[in-house]
């Protein structure tokens, strides 16, 4: 992916090491899919049902979309050496705004704009706390994380909120609809990915973000407005979460602020890390982050299909994630392979 261009590469590394970052998450994804194929016969079947592609592999891509969008935004924020814990709350608020404004009878295109506007406001708030006031990102975004779902509930209460469900051809079309048998949300996600990629990789912003994440003081001295860059990163992240919120809310056509997208921040951070991002900042791998989200969803779908009792789900997920991260760790790989190589480094 493009991310490798800007990645500082130690001189001592041999050229073939360059491949590795992309290889390990893809290998993990392949391994999960192969094991699922053995455990659940017919896992790879894809057919057309109701005019749309239908099958487990489609489900994985389909269900990974919201997580992938959130993770893309998270990758940008993590690139600044920050973190955004409030993405789940941003989704809850977005969903509550959608249900509320539709109940109020606004045109649905306006509702979509309002929902994304609400998400942007969440980003501006986080950006203000982190870049404006200089509060530690984990604490700054924790504020919205704990209050956001409450705000969502309050929005539901604006119209009674006992049955916050709605019907919307436009929003459901964007989320659960299909175009040429392919789910619409994939086109939507691809467009957002492309837009983000252009902003990050075809303007100087990506370089600025990575320089701020690498060393904010040095970036500042070099003439980069570190505070502005950080602010923009949080707004971008919230906007990505807002789109995920639109997809998730339209998916179930209901606003459920208490439980929608619960723990999505953790999945998003995990996707960034599986994709080779470092919480120490300074790197943004957009493409690999999407692979990371696919790894997580492939795992979730595989467990659901396998018929494993639900008590084991999270434990199995944790073990597999640990395995993937071990695969990615240079140190762990070296420790495992060095006795067989017969030469010490």
């Amino acid at each position: 992916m493009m991310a490798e261009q800007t990645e500082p590469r130690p001189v001592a590394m041999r050229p073939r090491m360059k491949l590795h970052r992309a290889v390990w998450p893809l290998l993990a994804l392949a391994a999960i899919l192969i094991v699922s194929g053995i455990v659940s016969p017919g896992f790879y079947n894809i057919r057309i049902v109701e005019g749309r592609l239908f099958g487990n592999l489609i489900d994985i891509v389909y269900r990974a979309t919201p997580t992938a969008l959130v993770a893309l935004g998270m990758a940008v924020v993590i690139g600044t050496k920050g973190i955004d814990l409030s993405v789940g709350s941003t989704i809850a608020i977005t969903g509550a705004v959608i249900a509320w404004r539709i109940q109020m009878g606004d045109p649905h295109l306006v509702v979509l704009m309002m929902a994304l506007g609400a998400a942007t406001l969440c980003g501006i708030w986080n950006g203000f706390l982190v870049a404006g006031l200089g509060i530690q990102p984990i604490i700054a975004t924790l504020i919205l994380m704990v209050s956001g779902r409450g705000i969502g509930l309050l929005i539901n209460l604006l119209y009674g909120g006992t049955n916050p469900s709605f019907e919307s051809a436009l929003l459901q079309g964007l989320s659960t609809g299909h175009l040429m048998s392919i789910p619409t949300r994939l086109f939507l996600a691809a467009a957002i990915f492309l837009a983000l990629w252009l902003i990050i990789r075809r303007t100087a912003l990506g370089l600025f973000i990575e320089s701020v994440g690498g060393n904010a003081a040095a970036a500042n001295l070099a003439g980069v407005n570190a505070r502005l860059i950080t602010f923009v990163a949080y707004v971008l992240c919230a906007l990505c979460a807002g789109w995920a919120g639109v997809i998730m809310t339209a998916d179930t056509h209901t606003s459920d602020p208490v439980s929608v997208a619960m723990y999505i921040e953790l999945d998003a951070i995990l996707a960034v890390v599986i994709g080779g991002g470092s919480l120490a900042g300074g790197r943004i791998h957009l493409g690999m982050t999407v692979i990371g989200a696919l790894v997580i969803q492939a795992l979730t779908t595989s467990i659901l299909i396998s018929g494993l009792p639900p008590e084991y789900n999270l434990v199995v997920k944790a073990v597999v994630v640990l395995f993937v991260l071990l695969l990615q760790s240079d140190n762990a790989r070296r420790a495992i392979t060095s006795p067989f190589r017969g030469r010490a480094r």
Partner: protein
Amino acid sequence: MHPKTIFGGAVAFAATIAATMASAQTIGFSQVGSEGDWRPAFSANMQESAKEFGIDLKFANAQGKQEEQLRAVRAFIAQGVDAIIVAPVVVTGWDQVLREAKEAEIPVFLVDRDVDVEDKTLYVTRISADFNLEGKLAGAWLATESKGTCKIVELQGTTGSAPAIERKKGFEAVISQFPAMEIVATQSGDFTTEGGKKVMEAFIKSTNNLDGICASFAHNDNMQLGAIQAMKEAGLKPGTDVQMVSVDYVPAIKDALAAGEANASVELRSAVGGFIYPIILDYLKSPTELDKWIVIPSDLHTAN
């Protein structure tokens, strides 16, 4: 608003409270939180029917945290309320605070969930629905409807939660009486619409479009609503191809029942204030030994 107006309003408000306190019974109610559709409806009903019974209700939302709840109960004790109602967040850790209430001679009533205390005299009674009975009712309806032959997929509530455990037990207790009834797939949908939809999507694939499946049993309506959406998107007809039975009877499932997309829902009554308050008021008038569990009856609703 002018500061004076606010102040004046506050004085008038305080006066109103003081006036009502003089005549009415004061009851403190510590609620779990406001998750899902059912609990906010339950809270609203408790507050509304308190007015009807002339009760001065002090309502505290614990936001799902036990420490918040313990603090609320201690505040009620300090205020010297006539009775305390608790909908416990968790079952354990109640001995100390309930002892404090007992020493202050304030009777404690449990609603909804149970507590695990050694000394059962620490609370008067628990007034709640019986999750196990709800599961049994769902199972009994399905056994009748399917004439005792049915392959079932189950959408469980949050793994390890009391309603999930009890509804499953109750349901299984009934269907185990019928050799041709069995649960062929079961997964947790975490009591959410999103969770129910994801799990049903997976079931649809793992059972080849629900081939041979006669029913979907969901531990709550929200998950069933998600399952209905997943089935419709896969071109299946919920309610016709597959019998849909769930628990809670929330407003959205009423619409689904009317549309024939759901078949039955066991009502977890949210309008229970009219059931709970008379028991408490009678006890306050003349304290007598009550059963440790007073079950609020459950009703099963079908499309017609």
